[in-house]
């Protein structure tokens, strides 16, 4: 399977999940995702599920607190101006969070399928214009720069006695200093590169060569199975939702 194929399949699954299928459609979607996970991702599926849980569980707890605990009604009930129930609010929260969980899991599955690639190889394998790939590398570089700046700021402020490594009230009080120090560090790191290193080496021109190629065939191998299967599933879901059958 190619990276482009995995992204296309993931895109179809996410689009279908966002479209809000009914229970039968969602069941088809789950079967498709499970099949993709078992065949293509295997053991790393647990990692995908764990990461999705890390993202979604806190959000679900927060939404549950607001909708079930405080509001006590589902949005549809509020719109219809009926009294409503906490059970309806809970179903509303679950339906949103399950879909979000599904979306995050699918993204993770697609990424983990190609976990053996380095970020540069990953970007190179995408079927995108070179300019877009360069933009992706630079965006990634910006994220790395910020992470580096956060490391630097931590060292500075902990050594200076301003922060501690563990959570503390002192850290909360001085958090704005951390933000300021991270910002100063990020700017100086970026300036250090852009003033001397990049102009002398013409480093950015190297990127073009580094990211081009790698996608001679946009789709190949197992893509020819997964794409028709995904599109077929999409048709089944749409038909199931448009023609729900006798209730």
């Amino acid at each position, binding site marked *: 399977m190619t990276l482009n194929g995995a992204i296309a399949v993931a895109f179809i699954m996410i689009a279908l999940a966002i479209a809000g299928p009914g229970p039968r459609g969602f069941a088809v979607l789950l079967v498709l995702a499970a099949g993709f996970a078992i065949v293509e991702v295997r053991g790393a599926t647990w990692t995908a599920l764990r990461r999705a849980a890390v993202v979604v569980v806190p959000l679900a707890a927060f939404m549950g607190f607001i909708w079930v605990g405080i509001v006590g009604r589902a949005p549809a009930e509020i719109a219809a101006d009926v009294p409503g129930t906490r059970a309806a609010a809970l179903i509303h929260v679950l339906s949103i969070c399950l879909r979000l969980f599904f979306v995050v899991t699918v993204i993770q599955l697609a990424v983990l399928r190609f976990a053996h690639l*380095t*970020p*540069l*190889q990953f970007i190179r394998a995408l079927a995108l214009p070179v300019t877009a790939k360069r933009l992706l*590398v*630079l965006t*990634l*570089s910006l994220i*790395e*720069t910020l*992470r*580096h700046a956060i*490391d*630097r*700021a*931590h*060292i*500075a*402020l*902990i*050594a*200076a*006695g*301003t*922060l*501690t*490594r*563990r959570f*503390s009230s*002192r850290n909360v009080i001085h958090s704005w*200093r951390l933000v*300021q*120090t991270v910002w*100063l*560090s990020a*700017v*100086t*790191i*970026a*300036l*250090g*590169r852009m003033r*001397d*290193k*990049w*102009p*002398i*080496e*013409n*480093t950015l021109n*190297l*990127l073009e*060569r*580094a990211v081009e190629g790698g996608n001679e065939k946009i789709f190949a191998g197992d893509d020819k199975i997964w794409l028709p299967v995904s599109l077929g599933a999409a048709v089944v879901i749409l038909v199931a939702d448009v023609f729900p059958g006798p209730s």
Partner: protein
Amino acid sequence: MARRELFSGLNFSGRSAAMLALLRDGSFARECFYIGPYAEAALSGLSATIADEIEIYRAKPASLGHTAFAPIDFAPLARREPQTLSGGEQVLLALHCFSLSSYAALGIDTALEQLDRANRDAALDYLDPRKDFAGNVALIDNRLPPPQVGWHTIDLPAGATDLDCDPRRVVADLARQIAPAIAVSDLGFRYARGRQIFQDVSLSLEGGNAYRLAGPNGAGKTTLLKLLVGVIAPSGGKLTLGGARYWPWRHGNRAIALATQNPDHQWCGATLADDLARRRSAFARHARVGSLAKGRLAKLAQLLGAPSLDAHLYELPLAARKRLSWLWPLAGALPWVMLDEPSIGQDVNTRSRLAAAIVRLTALGYGVLFVTHDDDFADRIPHRVLAIGDATIRMN
């Protein structure tokens, strides 16, 4: 004919600017590889892994046929982020990338000073004009006095902006101090998904002594400083300060004034005044910090070449920032002073004055722990060696 240009002169003589002008001059090479003094100007900053950093520079096709320079094997480190390498390892990675690239020329601004003896010798051997690397090289290195065989020296006179720096005068008026002993027992540490850096390390550091942390690039010298200051937490073992349990990673640093290898890793303000005010506020309960009024710190800063406490730190030259990074440790605020590669980028005069200041600190009872690959600098300071290697630390 390959050119070898060695820029010689004191700090602020304009060596870096002269070298950059040469590298930008088309007659030296159409495009040059550049290794600046610190990581931000040594690595491309475009890669999230070491494998990607190498891939970006790898020539396609490998036309020039440089001999590959690989004193350490980067293959097992391929998935690591370049920033997680030690300073010296980053320089080695940059040199490795250059050796695989199609650049015909290389400029190095003091970066080789971060290398341990074996790696430095290997790097200088690689650049040796009598060997098979045929490209042009421009080099600034404070520990490579001219003349050098095969190198053309560009000697720059002392600059008009030479900032007088005398660390000896900063410590001249300090009162005696009794630094509490630091004892480490059964210390263990490993980075996430990394190798074991320390295992069951035990050692005792007494005030009134200077200790030199020695070991190859990447052995864990800076990591030990980070552990003692509380930036990272050990996986096991305990620390005591003056006989009492000490958890800097939980409760914060209480005893150590640290000057980092890259001075820009230690500023906590945009100006020196901001930085010092925050330090004084954080350590306000320490008796000696209370005596460090802003006016006194301003005078001490002047002795290190700072025109004013209100100068924007990042507008000062790197060598000046490095000197100012010593201000807090040398001001005597805290009983332990830890200096990570303090002599990098500093000319011979400043190095010898700094060494004298460290000697004075230990005579006053302060404890000093320093990291350096500069044997000449270390030899000026009576010290004991803490040799790091194979996840242990041995005191020689």
